[in-house]
Each structure stands twice: as C-alpha cells, then as structure tokens.
C-alpha cells in the first residue's frame, strides 16, 4: 500500500512522529484507521486549546457539532455552512459530530493508515468489512466516518492546501453518506424558493442549474443550492429540499455573465482548476434558506441562440431522465441507490414538471421562474 502524504510541519516534529507511530498501531485492523484518527484528533485538541473552535449547525434539520483545531482551517470550512449556523444555548445531543484538525498548524501528523486506491479517481475510499466505517482520501484531506456513532474525524495537510472543492463543499463525501443514512438522498439539482415554495432545477452538469439559481437569487428569491439538495420525504406526496452548502463554483463563462458577483469570487488556487468559488452568505446574507418544500420541478436547458427564457410543461419521463442518472450516481452507497431511485420517482410523480429553455438574457430567467411557480401552485 502506498504511504499517505503528511503535512510539512507535521513531518518534522519528533514527538509527532512518535504519536503517529503510536496511533497507527492502536487502531483495530478492521476500522480503516478510524481509532488512530480519533486519537490523533484528541491529541491535537489537548495540545492546542487556544486554536480550537466549536460551532453548531443544522444539517437536514438535525443538530450537528463541528470542532476544528487550527484557526485558519476553521475559518475556511465554516464559510459554506454559515447559513446553517445554530445558536446553541442549551446542550443538545448532536446527530452528527465532525472533528477535524490542521496537520501543519498543529504539528499533529495524520496516522499512516492503509487505503484502497482507485488509480483514476480523485478520491480513495476504504470501508470496514461491515460497512460501518468508511474513510475517504481526497488530495490533502483524509476523513473517516463512523456511521454507527455518526462521527466524522478528519485532517487536512494544511489550510493552504485545502482544494477549491473542499473550500466550497467541506466534508462532501461523508456528508452525502450521512444524509443517505438518515433517509435524505442527495439529488443533483439547484433549489430556490419564493414565499417558502421550493423550485427544484434538475439536470446534469452544464444544463444551467447554477445560472438559473444565481439569476433567481439576484432578483430576490431565497437561495438554497446550485448543485446538491438533500431530498426528504415529509408525508404523502410531500418532499422537503435541504440546503447543504451556500457556495457556488463558477466556470469562467459563468463568472463573465455574473459581473456583479465576480468581485466576490475567489480565484482557483491550483492551475488545473478553472472554477472560482463564491460564498453566497457573504454576498446575500439575508437571502439564504435552510429548507423548502419542493412544489415544482423545472428542467433547465441552455439555448445560446435565443434571447428570452421560456417554459413549457414537460413529461414525467423527461424529468426522470434528466434528474435520476446524475443524482443516483453521486449517492455514495451504491447498495442504497435503488431506494433513492424510488424516492425520485415518487417526487417526479407528485409535483408539476416544466422544461425551462434558458435564453442568453439572464434578466428574463427570474420572471419566467415566477410564472411557472404561479402556474404550478395555483
């Protein structure tokens, strides 16, 4: 097995090397190094009391505790969740705990644990034989998720090495799995709301979800997502869409279209990434939502040759074909995808469906979305 990379400062400390050696041996063989990761986190927590932060959030309506050791890392990973902050005054039982430390800032190395490597994949995944513990390694980040305890423990080589993807969607892989375990399937869609009525925009990458959601946000809609939505059954023919991240990754042509947002976008931090990052809570702090009932499904499609956006009723088959493949393939546990498919079918059958033909005049999108929403809920 290849040895995993470690942070620069972490590699230099003798005491740190000893700890890494100790924790690597202390985990049980079948836990994917989860025990060793926990010990290393607790060590970082003890050794750096002034650099620790604890914050509470609501993910899919459930309380979540985030603890970070490392100030710069804490500042970065909090941003995409800032709209989900929970003011906790009384102690509550968290539904999920996320504990993460910065290797470079704390000098606490990542335990040297074995992993399964998919040669062509950006993420390496390992799981315990019973599927309880799943570990993910993506670029400079390692995360271990104990599904029974509902605890994610992770480390980053250094805050400055956090990828653009992790800056916009921290802990994405285990978070999708946690949602799936809680009966909240993640769908590949954007979600905005008007007066609490959610409009879900489904489709594969490049369909126009981000452009539609951002155009609606700029004109006063509540924004929940441009890419990932947690879908939960709330009752017969009722589906709640949950926001996961308040970030958008803009391709260069999108950044050019949204000139007023471009000033707030953070340029890519590695040459091979051309997407800039936008944290929407920092631009529209009052227009972000946590959840909304899905009242209508719209399927955007970009038409560069036309100016104005139009809509028409779409077939349920068209909707399922647009929404299901990319949604199901991003659900982490393949054994549970059948259930995710059934939920998508139920949702598609329950709400009105429209095709949204996007023109190149962004200003015409929100009024068109407004019209189709009125038509759907009248």
């Amino acid at each position, binding site marked *: 097995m290849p040895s995993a990379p470690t942070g620069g400062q972490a590699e230099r400390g003798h005491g740190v090397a000893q700890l890494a050696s100790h924790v690597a041996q202390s985990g049980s063989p079948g836990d994917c190094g989860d025990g060793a990761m926990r010990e290393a986190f607790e060590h970082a927590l003890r050794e750096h009391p002034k650099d620790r932060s604890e914050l509470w959030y609501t993910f899919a309506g459930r309380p979540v505790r985030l603890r970070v050791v490392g100030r710069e890392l804490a500042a970065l990973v909090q941003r995409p969740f800032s709209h989900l902050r929970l003011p906790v005054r009384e102690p509550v039982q968290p539904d999920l705990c996320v504990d993460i430390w910065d290797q470079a800032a704390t000098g606490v190395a990542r335990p040297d644990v074995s992993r399964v490597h998919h040669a062509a994949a950006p993420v390496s*995944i390992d799981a315990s034989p019973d599927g309880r513990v799943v570990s993910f390694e993506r670029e400079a980040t390692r995360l271990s998720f104990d599904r029974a305890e509902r605890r994610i423990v992770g480390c980053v080589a250094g805050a400055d090495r956090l990828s653009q993807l992790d800056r916009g969607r921290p802990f994405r892989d285990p978070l999708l799995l946690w949602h799936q375990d*809680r*009966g909240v399937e993640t769908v590949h869609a954007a979600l905005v709301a008007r007066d609490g009525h959610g409009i879900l925009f489904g489709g594969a990458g490049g369909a126009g979800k981000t452009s539609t959601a951002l155009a609606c946000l700029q004109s006063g809609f509540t924004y929940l997502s441009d890419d990932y939505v947690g879908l939960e059954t709330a009752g017969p023919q009722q589906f709640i869409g949950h926001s996961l991240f308040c970030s958008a990754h803009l391709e260069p042509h999108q950044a050019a279209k949204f000139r007023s947002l471009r000033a707030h976008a953070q340029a890519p931090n590695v040459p091979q990434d051309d997407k800039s990052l936008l944290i929407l809570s920092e631009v529209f702090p009052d227009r972000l939502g946590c959840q909304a009932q899905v009242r209508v499904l719209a399927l955007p499609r970009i038409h560069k040759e036309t100016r104005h956006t139009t809509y028409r009723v779409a077939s349920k088959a068209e909707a399922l074909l647009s929404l299901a493949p990319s949604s199901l*393939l991003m659900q982490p546990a393949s054994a549970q995808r059948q259930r995710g498919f059934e939920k998508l079918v139920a949702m598609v059958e329950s709400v009105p469906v429209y095709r949204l033909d996007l023109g190149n005049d962004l200003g015409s999108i929100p009024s068109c979305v407004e019209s189709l929403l009125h038509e759907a809920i009248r």
Partner: protein
Amino acid sequence: MSDPRWALNESEVAAKVIDGEAIILNLASGMYYSLDRVGAIVWEMMAEGRSAEEIAQRVATAYDMPREQVRRDLLGLVSELLDEQLITEVSGDKPRSESSGEIAAVSEPYHAPQLNKYSDMADLLALDPPMPGLMDGPWNQASEHA
C-alpha cells in the same frame, strides 16, 4: 421452438415506466436508457415474466401486426438488453405477475422498439466511483423515512 422468459437484473438496474416511456438505469455502469412506447410495453411484460410468445402475441394483437414480425423485433431488443446486462433469461413456465397483462388500447402506429442509450454518466462514474457493497446496518435509519 423455445419460449424464453426474462427478469430484470434487479441487483444493478433501477427502472420505471412513466408516461408510457421506460427509463432504465444501470447503477453499476452508469449507463442509462429509455424505451419508446412499444418498447415500454415490452419491458413491463418482461418484468412480469411473460414469455416471448405471450409478448409477441399481445403486441401483435394490440397493434394489428403480423406476430412473426413482432417476435423478430422483440428478440432483437432482447439481444440488446442482454448485452447491456439489463435483463437475464430465467426458467419457468408461468408469469410472475398476477396482472392480466392486457395492453390498453393503442392509438399510435407500430414501430419496432428501439433502445436509446446514454453514456455521459459512465465517464463521471469512472472518475468518481461509488462505494461498492456498503451494507445497511442499525446505523441506517433511512428505512424509517421511506
């Protein structure tokens, strides 16, 4: 002449006939498919475990077409579905479904069923593979919400 029957490859395939169209996903490969109206009718009857003869006879009657032509078209589709690992041939001499298997009145003309294939997601899956075989356990509360 043998009279084969088939079953959906349920461990890897998710499918739904909706608005008279069959949407079929191969969850292992990332390939997905659609079948037109005749194809969707055939797909449903295959899922019920009806034999080639039963399917050909009912489709031929509903569309007022020669049974042999419909059977040839059916076996052509079956060959594609087997190649794509969407169905498997099974033994048995009765359908698995209690339904009558009657085809509702059709208004459109007969067209040989055509399997439309989409491969754009397969590339995505190759880059970002799912976690295979992750088991449900006491930690999974999803069934409570289903």
